């Protein structure tokens, strides 16, 4: 069958490594929705947090190079990782009105800039391009009774004028998207708080404290699970959850899903192909309890 929409696809480093299940579930979901994804050949790291902290020119150039590589591939550029999305959008934003920086990056790349391809997060593709109504129709297995805490983290919507995904301080796009599956998005306080991000390597204590508050807030709101769109947030909330439980004396046992895992499950993709086994906090008891597998 012919695809309904076509995109070029920038997975980013995490989705080929620690967040493989994000990549798998994204491919599975998009196939089920008949949305084509063509991976950009030979893509580079976006520079993530280290590059722009050390050298702005390097960070802008890496993103500009990726956009240049994506240019010949058909369709707008689909991005799954919140950090890659943020870096690519930031590069477009910063280079748009700054002649001096454009010249520097052009010099670094030794090629004319090709920044025009729209960069879109998966959420935007699902909510706006594909459309929520069509999404709801495509959901074969409703996730009724599942209470989901949608976690945005820092980068999906901020700073206000860069990602243009939704309202920076009170977004609803994740809630709207997961609502298509019939799951209940709970109202909770820590949707946009920082999880500690890559302090996970240098000062894990900070991450344990901040992520603990996020887990506690999700539990207070009565959530069964957390849904994320960022591999680093996932790492902190899922991989570190045991440590957090030890440090705080709380017992959360709170599965942390990538949004595409839940959507793909609802779209009828086989649960064996969604990487549930690579989650540290196993979702299987929850999914069985809710009769979703």
């Amino acid at each position: 069958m012919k695809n309904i929409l076509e995109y070029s696809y920038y997975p980013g480093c995490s989705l080929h490594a620690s967040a493989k299940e994000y990549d798998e579930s994204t491919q599975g979901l998009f196939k089920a929705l008949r949305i084509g994804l063509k991976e950009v050949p030979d893509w580079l790291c976006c520079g993530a947090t280290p590059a722009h902290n050390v050298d702005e020119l390097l960070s802008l150039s890496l993103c500009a190079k990726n956009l240049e590589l994506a240019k010949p591939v058909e369709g707008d550029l689909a991005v799954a990782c919140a950090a890659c999305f943020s870096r690519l959008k930031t590069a477009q934003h910063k280079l748009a009105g700054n002649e001096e920086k454009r010249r520097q990056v052009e010099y670094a790349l030794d090629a004319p800039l090709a920044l025009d391809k729209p960069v879109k997060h998966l959420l935007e593709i699902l909510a706006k391009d594909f459309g929520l109504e069509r999404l709801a129709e495509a959901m074969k297995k409703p996730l009724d009774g599942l209470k989901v805490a949608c976690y945005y983290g820092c980068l999906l919507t901020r700073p206000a004028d860069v990602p243009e995904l939704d309202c920076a301080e009170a977004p609803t796009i994740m809630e709207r998207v997961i609502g298509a599956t019939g799951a209940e998005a709970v109202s909770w306080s820590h949707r946009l708080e920082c999880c500690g991000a890559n302090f996970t390597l240098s000062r894990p204590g900070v991450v344990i404290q901040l992520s603990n508050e996020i887990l506690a807030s999700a539990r207070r709101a009565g959530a069964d699970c957390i849904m994320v769109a960022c591999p680093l947030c996932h790492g902190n909330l899922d991989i570190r959850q045991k440590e957090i439980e030890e440090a705080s004396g709380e017992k959360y046992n709170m599965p942390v899903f990538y949004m595409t895992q839940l959507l793909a499950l609802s779209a009828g993709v086989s649960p064996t192909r969604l990487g549930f086994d690579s989650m540290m906090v196993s979702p299987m008891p929850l999914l069985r309890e809710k009769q979703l597998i």
Partner: protein
Amino acid sequence: MSRIGVFICHCGENISRTVDVERVAKAAEKISGVAYACEYKYMCSDPGQNLLKKAVIDQNLDGIVVAACSPRMHEKTFRKAAQSAGLNPYLVEMANIREHCSWVHEDREEATTKATEIVTMLVERVKMNKKLQPITVPVTKRALVIGGGIAGIQAALDIADCGHHVVLVEREPSIGGHMAQLSETFPTLDCSQCIMTPKMVDVANHPNITLHTYSEIENVDGYIGNFQVTIKKKARSVDMDKCTGCGVCMAKCPQKKIPNSFDKDLGMRPAIYVPFPQAVPNTPVIDRENCTYFKSGKCGVCQKVCGPGAVDYTQEDQLVVEDIGAIVVATGFELYSIGEKPKGSAIKGYGEFGHGKIPDVIDGMTFERLASASGPTGGKILRPSDGKEPQQVVFLQCVGSRAREKGISYCSKICCMYTAKHTMLYHHKVHDGQAYVFFMDARTPGKGYDEFWRRSIEDENAVYIRGAVSRLYQKGDKIVVMGSDIALGIQVEIEADMVVLATAVQPRQGADLLAQKLGISYDMYNFYSEAHAKLRPVECATAGVYLAGACQGPKDIPDSVSQASAAAAKVMTLFAKDELEREPIVAKVNDKNCVACFYCKKVCPYGAVEEKEIRDRQGNLIKVVAWVNPGVCGGCGTCQASCPSKSVELDGYTDEQIMAQIEAL
């Protein structure tokens, strides 16, 4: 041959620093038609003006160019001086060599050349100036005051006490405005009701005041001294002459669950209501949107129980036309709401504070109602969600104000003081409670103001934290306030029971629409603009319209009252004469050439152009031409620029004069 005098001012050093004024004077002497030229340090001072007067007589001058500042500054000054020496004032022109030359240039050589050229141009213009006589128009000695808050009430009382008739129009069912909602007032903590309600009664009883409540301005025609104002009196559904204000209708109305906006929706009111017990007039209105009778045709209880038979469901909106000589605009303000704003609005709202969805996050006016003895809690500080007494209250200042990223860059001026007052009122009522205030700067310029603020900290135990708040969220029955203390350089988290936001002062919604009806200008935020920020602070650029209170910019009560009295004084100055002199710089139409296309009528911003019929002696219509009403014409020249047949000319700015100026370059 003309005998023109040129007077060049140093303006202290403002002009002479960049312009060689002596050289300009020497050059001016050589211009054909110039009989006399001189320079002086302060031409606008008494000796400077005397220099001009003496030269008019000694040199027998028939025209004057004063090369100094902008005509907006001192044209009147020099015209008056010339007039006292016997010269027609409209033969005096200003050559602006300050704003247009010395202030904007650095190169002395070039600036001097330019100043000389400006002077030359003005000399050519003055040669063709005509002796004009001021236009006189009659003055209707009745004032209109729009808005019945403290500013409008003060202005109305002052004008009425002076013996002139005042028409006071208020949109709400009662006068009183925001001040009637307040509990106590800074910096003396006297009860707002106690100083406000007697003034409201004075308005109601004043023989010189006609009060139109529940009314709005529909249309404004005419010009200074001669406005015709159409007022829409909304249907009250209660006959004001019959109603005795007994209140039985309100007590018996079965529909009692309508949030009362006067109490910031904390209390409930019936569908037939007065906003508060001390309302003036004490005549109820029926809120037709919520009344069962108007919604379904059933009920009718109020009509049945009304002894004097005052309830009248058939009443309709009424239009009243009033002849008015001067208008005082006192429409006041409203508070910024942190809720979601429509897309594309310059104002953003506060998503980080939950867009106003946390019930115990309230604004300053809501706190006033909680603290007020006549408020919905009888003066007890109880939080809206569960009626408990809050033990920790956090006050946030500058919410919306001084926040360019939220769409407003100005300071709202009153919040520092009322927040200090709130911490005191809270401490007086909840003795063991703790108030915290997050603030950027404490701005307390005013008599007794800083002392008042210090008192809130030193005697009333308020903790002030310098820094901003990034987020508010509900946690159980607490509200977590996440902020920063920039003095200590640390992050602060407070679990509060209630949060009070000092939200920005904004003009009333629809302020721009009223301004368009009145033909007055407003700024990017819709605050009304005064004619001159320093020297004409209560007048609009539109003649005959004056400003009072917060519609012009954020103001506290003392400032609003002062400005209202000042506006009243301006109205009384206008009413002191039977006839009004107006600048004769108005457009005139040449009937012979006018082709009656009426482009001028379309472009005139003052609505001064009318259609005039020309008839022969037998009364047969020969043609229709444009006619400019000199009482209305503002002298802007737009008609002159747009006239395709060159039939309109502005006195003092004729095409001939402008061409002569250009040719002189």
